[in-house]
């Protein structure tokens, strides 16, 4: 690996479908580009379709010196890893947003290239020519620092771990088409049913998450109202999704979505270990629960022992009152 300034850092671009049928660059990609600038020169890698002018400009605003485009639609991870390799052959570092699908792609890219890989990282830096990363393990109860011992470093970055900051006087990045032939894969995608673009920010990326558990009894009206008021997303515990009160996409926990928002509000959630593992690294944690012995209080900065049906309406009214709306 070369000195920081000379490293090429490839950043795989994540997008979201928008309600008007278009696509927008996901927030965590802007965070990853910001992180990439501290490691070298970022180049954005766009796989599938082509970016709009707005998207190219936005990627440039956050530091992408170039946007490399592979227009072919690549849905299978083994093919996506090959596409990413094609677009990042000159890179010393590859950053992806740490989603389940990207972890698969990162692992395959590591096998293809001999790279070292760390996923779920909360940060990365170049130290003495090696990439070092920090992450939390054991349900976010331990901090770990690791060094990647290979020439190529692949890092999966957790959303909300770097503050996205735009570059001043950004230049419009060049768009470079990268030729790629989608290989035959053993895996065949038989059908894809898109999940309706959710109202608001996806759970993993939301700056605020308000979650409801068993204590809601299935009534999410107050949880939704508070989430909307705070500009956040709605989460749920495993209990609640198992009951069918809310869809699986909302589940916060080790096997659902791991979240690290600035503020996490747990309503009627006891805080089983699997749930805590998915939210314990959040900035400020606030809990409302009837049971004073609920484990969630052990990791809360502020807790109210009481009924969410009393506490939330009063809290919502108070916030509205202070804001004067």
């Amino acid at each position: 690996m070369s000195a920081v300034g000379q490293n090429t850092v490839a950043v795989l671009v994540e997008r979201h479908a928008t309600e008007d049928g278009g696509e927008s660059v996901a927030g965590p990609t802007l965070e990853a580009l910001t992180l990439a600038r501290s490691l070298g020169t970022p180049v954005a890698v766009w796989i599938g379709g082509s970016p709009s002018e707005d998207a190219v400009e936005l990627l440039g605003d956050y530091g992408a010196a170039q946007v490399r485009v592979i227009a072919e639609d690549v849905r299978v991870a083994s093919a996506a890893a090959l596409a990413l390799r094609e677009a990042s052959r000159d890179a010393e570092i590859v950053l992806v947003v740490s989603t389940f699908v990207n972890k698969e792609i990162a692992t395959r890219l590591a096998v293809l290239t001999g790279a070292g890989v760390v996923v779920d990282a909360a940060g990365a830096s170049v130290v003495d020519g090696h990439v070092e990363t920090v992450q939390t393990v054991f349900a976010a109860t331990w901090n770990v620092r690791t060094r990647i011992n290979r020439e190529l470093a692949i890092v999966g970055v957790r959303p909300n771990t770097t503050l996205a900051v735009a570059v001043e006087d950004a230049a419009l990045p060049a768009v470079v088409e990268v030729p790629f032939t989608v290989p035959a894969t053993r895996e065949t995608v038989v059908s894809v049913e898109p999940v309706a673009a959710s109202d608001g920010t996806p759970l993993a990326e939301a700056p605020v998450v308000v979650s409801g558990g068993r204590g809601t009894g299935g009534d999410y009206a107050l949880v939704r109202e508070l989430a909307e008021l705070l500009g956040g997303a709605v989460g749920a515990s495993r209990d609640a999704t198992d009951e069918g009160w809310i869809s699986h996409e909302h589940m916060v926990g080790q096997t659902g979505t791991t979240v690290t928002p600035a503020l996490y509000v747990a309503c009627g959630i006891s805080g089983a270990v699997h749930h805590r593992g998915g939210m314990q690294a959040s900035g400020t944690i606030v809990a409302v629960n009837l049971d004073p012995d609920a484990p969630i209080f052990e990791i809360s900065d502020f807790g109210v022992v009481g009924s969410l049906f009393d506490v939330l309406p009063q809290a919502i009214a108070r916030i509205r009152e202070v804001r004067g709306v």
Partner: protein
Amino acid sequence: MRILVTVKFTPDLQSNRSFTDGAVTRTADDGSMNELDENAVEAALQLVEAAGEGEVYALTVGGPDAVAAVRKALQLGVTHAIHVSDAGIAGSDVFGTAKVLAAAVRRVHEEAPLDLVITGMAALDGLTSMLPTALAVELDWAQLTLASSLTVADGIATIERHLPDAHEVVSAPLPAVVSVTDEANTPRYPNFKLIMAARSAPVTVLTLADLGVVPSTVGAGAARVTVLDASPRPPREDRVIVTDTGEGGKQLADYLLERGLA
């Protein structure tokens, strides 16, 4: 139907865990089989039961304690247990572990072809979920990940999976590596007869030499990533817990407002 399930010995999530020299310290009295691997065992047992015939192998890699993971799988009803144990494996990263597992899978596959390798979606201690992919690449088999349902018919495995942006149906020819989520099924409880039988059931113990794995290609020396340090996260300071006596909501709102969070 012949299926191999990889299982991992992990520390009890409720117990205190620690790092020693950059590796997770595990002890037999506070650990067992990774909970998410129970879904993999269940998926394998259900497929064999539906087929009316077949065998299920449980395979683990790790020190002497790791045998607890395959014993648990035997209690659930797997027919064979394999434990790869060798001092040379210590400190392996995900690629080293996948190399060892793949060598053991190939050994079973050569005795009589396997249809599937089934894994859990992740290990709850590390939870990186990279192992199933690394194993599939090492074996050069098809891979289906994060299955919330799994069916096998006419030599094809088909899964459903729920991604944040889409629900997919994906299929691949056998043999394949499939990782299943905790949505895939509800693991059974061991029954008394199987618990008793599992105590004395034979466990095949293999070394790197038995598997023909060159020691220098696995273990700490071959790891692509080194843990430099690890420390427990400090507990949250200045925690405030109030009991709602009519003002709880207001107190909560004020806490958020004072900190610019609302």
